[in-house]
């Protein structure tokens, strides 16, 4: 297998406000977009010819990955203007496919081991994985190592093996694609017509992001695999425990206390006297002022965090300015996504380029829309729309 198609056109509506300006594949986990883990997994398995199907906010993908050279791969882009389903996306790549190829979702976190064996699978094949709760996925019913049927979101537990959305095809597949369908429907039709789709099982990582707080658990899992290194400047009196990675040009000021796993990007200014606790990732060009404590959180690029802030189990999207003594403590919360409520333990999610004044407090589960402004001494509860003004 030498060629791979990654589906990266989707929006991820349930992940708003984080996906208002970027596609789901560009959400950051441990300092990098989810898509970059998929591309790295392919490159490590020797697949360097990559076709990215982009659509929603495609510029964000183009700007980050370019022609792929920095990632050791060659990327060609195909645009899917309207996202009508995975088979529709696949139909777009017909002209650039040579022979056998892999298809992967760009928004699921995988590692090289996940697909190590599958890259040499004989098409047509689907990669499956055992999960505890198949109700969210496509359950795969097997028949002697081949797929008998794929049932989307099964009501009853028909099988614990689910479809990872990773496939091996030959260009023969294009004869079966009906654009209004998803790929599993296409496969079911092929099986009905007497074709064989083999199934291969993986024990490697395969993780999905459905709701914003899932990013925190993914962040935690990925961070536990990193190795520490210090590309920046560490002043005297800084304590570092566990695996901590510090990017080039970053300055960690005296008396800061860093407990890994922690990833800090390039050109940041941290401290003095800042505590970064386990499973925290910090982007590029971030300032964290004295006496702030951050734990199990994702802080994106260009964020300014004032003095004496406490941030737990939270996501701060890029470009936010947070003044002194902002508190986002973790706790039980009922968070509404669409029409449903979910009981989760989390801090707050702050959309991009928000301004939070001094001494603001976010209740657990608070979600602040992009470009919002919150005046000093305000309590943030529930959900604020984009461009809200809390005075």
């Amino acid at each position, binding site marked *: 297998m030498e060629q791979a198609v990654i589906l990266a056109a989707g929006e991820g509506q349930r992940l708003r406000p984080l996906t208002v300006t970027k596609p789901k594949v560009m959400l950051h986990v441990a300092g990098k977009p989810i898509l970059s883990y998929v591309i790295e997994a392919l490159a490590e398995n020797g697949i360097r010819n990559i076709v990215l199907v982009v659509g929603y906010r495609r510029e964000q993908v183009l700007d980050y990955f370019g022609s792929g050279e920095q990632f050791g791969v060659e990327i060609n882009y195909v645009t899917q203007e309207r996202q009508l389903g995975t088979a529709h996306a696949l139909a777009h790549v017909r002209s650039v496919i040579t022979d056998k190829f892999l298809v992967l979702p760009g928004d699921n976190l995988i590692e090289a081991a996940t697909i190590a064996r599958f890259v040499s699978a004989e098409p047509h094949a689907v990669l499956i994985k055992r999960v505890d709760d198949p109700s969210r996925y496509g359950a795969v019913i097997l028949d002697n190592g081949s797929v008998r049927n794929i049932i989307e979101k099964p009501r009853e537990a028909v099988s614990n093996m689910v479809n990872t959305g990773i496939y091996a095809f030959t260009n023969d597949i294009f004869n079966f694609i009906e654009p209004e369908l998803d790929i599993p429907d296409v496969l079911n039709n092929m099986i009905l017509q007497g074709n064989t789709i083999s199934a291969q099982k993986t024990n490697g990582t395969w993780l999905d992001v459905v709701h914003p707080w899932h990013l925190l658990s993914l962040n935690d899992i990925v961070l536990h695999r990193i190795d520490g290194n210090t590309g920046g400047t560490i002043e005297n009196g800084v304590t570092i425990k566990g695996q901590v990675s510090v990017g080039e*040009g970053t300055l960690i000021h005296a008396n800061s206390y860093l407990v890994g796993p922690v990833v800090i990007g390039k050109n940041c200014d941290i401290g003095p006297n800042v505590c970064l606790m386990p499973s925290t990732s910090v982007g590029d060009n971030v300032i964290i002022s004295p006496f702030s404590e951050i734990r199990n959180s994702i802080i994106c690029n260009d964020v300014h965090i004032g003095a004496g802030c406490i941030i737990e189990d939270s996501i701060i999207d890029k470009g936010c300015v947070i003044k002194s003594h902002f508190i986002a403590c973790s706790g039980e919360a009922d968070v509404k996504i669409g029409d449903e409520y979910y009981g989760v333990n989390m801090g707050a999610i702050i959309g991009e380029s928000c301004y939070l004044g001094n001494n603001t407090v976010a209740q657990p589960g608070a979600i602040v829309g992009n470009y919002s402004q919150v005046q000093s001494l305000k309590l943030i509860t529930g959900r604020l729309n984009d461009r809200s003004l809390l005075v």
Partner: protein
Amino acid sequence: MCGIVGYIGNRQAQPILFDCLSKLEYRGYDSCGIAIGGNSIDLYKDAIRVKALSKIAPQIPGTIGIGHTRWATHGEPCRLNAHPHCDCDNNIAVVHNGVINNFQRLREQLTAEGHNFTSETDTEIIPHLIEKYYTGNLEQAVECALRDIDGSFAIIALRAGEPRLVVARKDNPLVLGVGDREYFIASDIPALLDYTDRFIYLEDDDIGVITTDGIQIKKEGVEVLIKEEKISWTINDARKSGYEHFMIKEIHEQPKVIRDTLGEWKSAEPLTGLESILARETEAMLILACGSSFHAAMVGKYLVQDLLGIPARVEIASEFSYYREPLAATVALVITQSGETADILKTIKILKEVGCKVMVITNVLGSSAARISDDKLYTRAGPEISVAATKSFTAQLMVLYWLMMSYSRVDAIRLSGMLLGLRQMPSKVQQVLDNEENLIKHARYLSGYDNVFFMGRGINYPIALEGALKLKEISYIHAEGYAAGELKHGPFALLSNNTPVIAIIAKDNTYESMLTNIKEVKARGAPIIALAEEKDETIGSIADFVISVPKVDAIFSPIVNVVALQLLAYYTAKERCCDIDFPRNLAKSVTVE
């Protein structure tokens, strides 16, 4: 202004020459050609683009060759005037970038001596001079020929039956790329990045001889020590990576360019070497530039006055040499993207002659301007391929902010507020880009008009000029930038409901006056497109259309405003189906006066 390339090694030269030439087309593209060496010289050239020529050219075998892509100065674009040019017997072929001032006299002299000329170019005298001096040593003949020449040049010469290339430069760029028993020559680095990351810079008056065994460089007959440098640019930087044009790709690179500039500023030691230039006793500053860089310089003028509290004078480099009055400043800042613009180089020489300290801000490492100035600051824009300057302009602005804020004489409260604001700029610019859809709508509207005015005040006056320049150079719509207060002194006569006016508004001490100007324009029936901070309801109520940009400290408003205007120009040109990366009659860096 042209691009030249050369190759010597073990591979077939022709495909390499065409590939490298296609990457130099930003330097000019009205005609092109190649010459392949061997027992004889095989020449192929025409007045068409590189891609077209490479399709129709016959396969000429040979592992040594030279190539040229032209921006006409002497003689119209046609096949005879295209390079390479040869001597009378077609034994010597030369490609040349530059201008020879005394070519008329030399040509008459050579004609009298019996040489036959076939073109109208100044270049053609070079192969004939080499022919005249050739006694068995090509390098010596080139050296003698160049002694007769008064002008600027970067040349590559090739002779039938000789497995060597001879290169030389004076006031025009030339780099040598080093491979494994093969060498590449080009006017700039990006053209060669597909082949190597090891480079040798040629200095003025150097003459080099290149064979597959190595390079020998001499200056005034004395051998020079060769310094090889590794370049960290990647090919990625010079590819379109999924975008339709280089211009839009480069517009989108701006958040990263700004972030990189900020990063470098942070990690840099206090600006060593610049102290002397911006020392506290500096009483006035002179800033010189051309084109878009001149608009950056004008923003710089406001910054110098506002942040350093000293007077500043901004001049167009090509006009500067005509001023007879003594210089008012002891310090000059020169801004040039390419570092090769002929007018700029001439100006730097004049300034240095009168004892002025010169600091250059340029995007090209090791460029001529960087080498001849007292001090230099590099913008971190990476290679800019699109002829219309975008990211190099914002990178210049960032360096100016950095410089002036580093030496600012403003109080600590204002400075810390500005520092916080500056670090938010990558995200603010990203917000402008994320709002692209909205700009496309306005571009569609604008594309239906033939005349457009831009107006601004204060620090955004230069942005009105830059916005107009962007629009006219790529969409061919007649666009004029004005200081908002000047519109009533004449240009009002041109206003009608067919002349949209784009008003750039900042929330600073110019705001009230701008409102008045907008009302004046509206009263003449011209549609108003206002570029204003988001949530400005006053503007919303009086303008016909509003382009919103994110709220920033007014001193940084030129950055978000110019990015919005770049997008507006790009999409307007796209709407009008223009050749955006290669606008007619233009070239990227202009090495002629």
